[in-house]
């Protein structure tokens, strides 16, 4: 794989990973690296398994009965297979943050939303909380808009602000890997541009895996792109190459819009 040839550190990778919703085989032998401090985009037609794959990285599927993982998802630097039965999914989620398609702020104040992860991790010192919350809100480009109303309910924010708040909520706990599932599909163009700008800023700080329906978005924000189709990764490579010189016919069809 080109990445290992370039000797880039791999933050996480899947090895022969399969996933089943009950008897439905949703992901088939996925082998995908996620390069550290870079953005990897998952693209592909609706229903191809992008969300399913993304949600495996923080074991979100454990919340529902009947789901089954098979194979490995390895998280570095400790080389832990997060699917191992001995690994606590809560430990995994402590290290891997997630931003959802629809902003889902908690019914609490702006401050308490960002403090949430820190409190769950046992942080009690008010000054530490204050500092980390300011950092996280600055990191999510939201500080200037909310610094005077930290105690107001988060649900009063606009959709785009709520999504940035959800990003700040993750950033506050310093995740090693940040998962985004179509984070802008519920937002207007300006809010979308803000989030894209934010992802571009974050990519030097944190490893990002992002699902997107929007190919321009994938091209703008990501370094690496995986094209998925019917539960398989058809093509993976440097974003420019995947978009400009796709190796597989299916990828080319999808990217040039000849698909479906």
């Amino acid at each position, binding site marked *: 794989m080109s990445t290992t040839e370039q000797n880039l550190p791999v933050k996480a990778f899947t090895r022969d990973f399969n996933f089943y919703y009950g008897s439905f085989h949703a992901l088939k032998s996925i082998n995908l690296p996620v390069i550290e401090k870079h953005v990897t985009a998952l693209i592909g037609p609706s229903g191809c398994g992008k969300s399913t794959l993304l949600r495996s990285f923080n074991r979100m599927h454990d*919340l529902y009965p009947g789901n089954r993982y098979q194979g490995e998802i390895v998280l570095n630097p400790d080389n832990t297979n997060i699917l191992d039965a001995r690994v606590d999914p*809560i430990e995994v989620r402590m290290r891997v943050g997630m931003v959802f398609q629809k902003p889902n702020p908690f*019914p609490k104040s702006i401050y308490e939303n960002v403090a949430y992860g820190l409190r*769950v991790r046992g942080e009690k010192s008010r000054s530490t909380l204050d500092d980390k919350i300011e950092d996280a809100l600055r990191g999510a480009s939201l500080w200037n808009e909310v610094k005077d109303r930290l105690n107001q309910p988060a649900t009063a924010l606009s959709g785009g602000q709520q999504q940035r708040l959800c990003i700040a909520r993750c950033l506050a706990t310093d995740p090693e890997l940040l998962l985004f599932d179509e984070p802008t599909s519920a937002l207007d163009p300006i809010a979308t541009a803000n989030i894209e700008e934010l992802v571009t800023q974050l990519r030097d700080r944190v490893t990002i895996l992002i699902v997107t329906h929007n190919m321009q978005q994938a091209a703008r924000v990501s370094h690496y792109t995986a094209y998925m189709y019917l539960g398989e990764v058809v093509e993976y490579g440097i974003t420019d190459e995947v978009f400009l010189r796709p190796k597989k016919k299916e990828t080319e069809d999808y990217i040039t819009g000849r698909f479906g």
Partner: protein
Amino acid sequence: MNSMQTTTVVSDRLARNVQRNIRERAIETILFGAALVSVLTTVGIVWVLVSESLNFFDHVPFGDFLTDTMWTPLFSEPHYGILPLLMGTITTSLVALVVAIPLGTVIAAYLSEFASARVREIVKPFLELLGGIPTIVYGYFALTVVTPLLQAIYPDLPGFSMLSAGLVMGIAIVPYISSLTEDAMRAVPMSLREGAYGMGSTRFQTAIRVVIPAALSGVLSAYILGISRAVGETMIVAVAAGMQPNFTMDPTEPAQTISAYIVQVALGDLPHGSIGYQSIFAAGLSLMLMTLLFNILGHVIRRRYREAY
């Protein structure tokens, strides 16, 4: 020829429209009538309570009613102070709520956030059964089972006590609180739970820190409904708390509640038309005002805490 056809078609359609309108009107009238029945019933009850109470207050000064510490309508020198009955009502309700609110909430949180679908299927019918038991049965359960049990712990406990009645009333209210609270918690969208789990929360943290706050307006409404039921509950207290008005808030004593007094008089201890008989309307009005107060409170809370997801 052609234009004639068109006109028939149009008039046909108009005729159908008229027919539909008539049908819609008829349905609307029936529905309105149904709504009217409940409104008229309420108005009628309030009318009777208020007019009869006014008669009562012609003979008993309103100030005495509110401040006198004795309620003795059967005595030759009767006192009509609502306070003893009010204290009985409040005390038994408090005992009941101390049981019902924590237990109901924990059961709801368990069923909504922890239990598997199978466990839920087994537990819920039992709760519904518990809610369907007639309160008179609970009353005798309090008197013949719970009171002796309590007496084994506190030998000084009298045969009738607000403690025993209140505890059993609490059990009787649990299904109402738990089922409404559970409904409110289950209505919280999964996306919010996923957000909480995604941050590394345990189930318990998710339930306490995210789901319950998100369901707060529904949970508080459930509590208010529980309070209303406790305040109005009649048979359990009539059977197990004793029938003596008692100016105390000590739950280990026997006492009478407003509702129990109404039963007692309605059963025929006092002649119709006497002041003592009219006193039940004043008592009933007080009870209704209390319930109304809680309903208004519930309404305010629902508006105040309603969450937009």
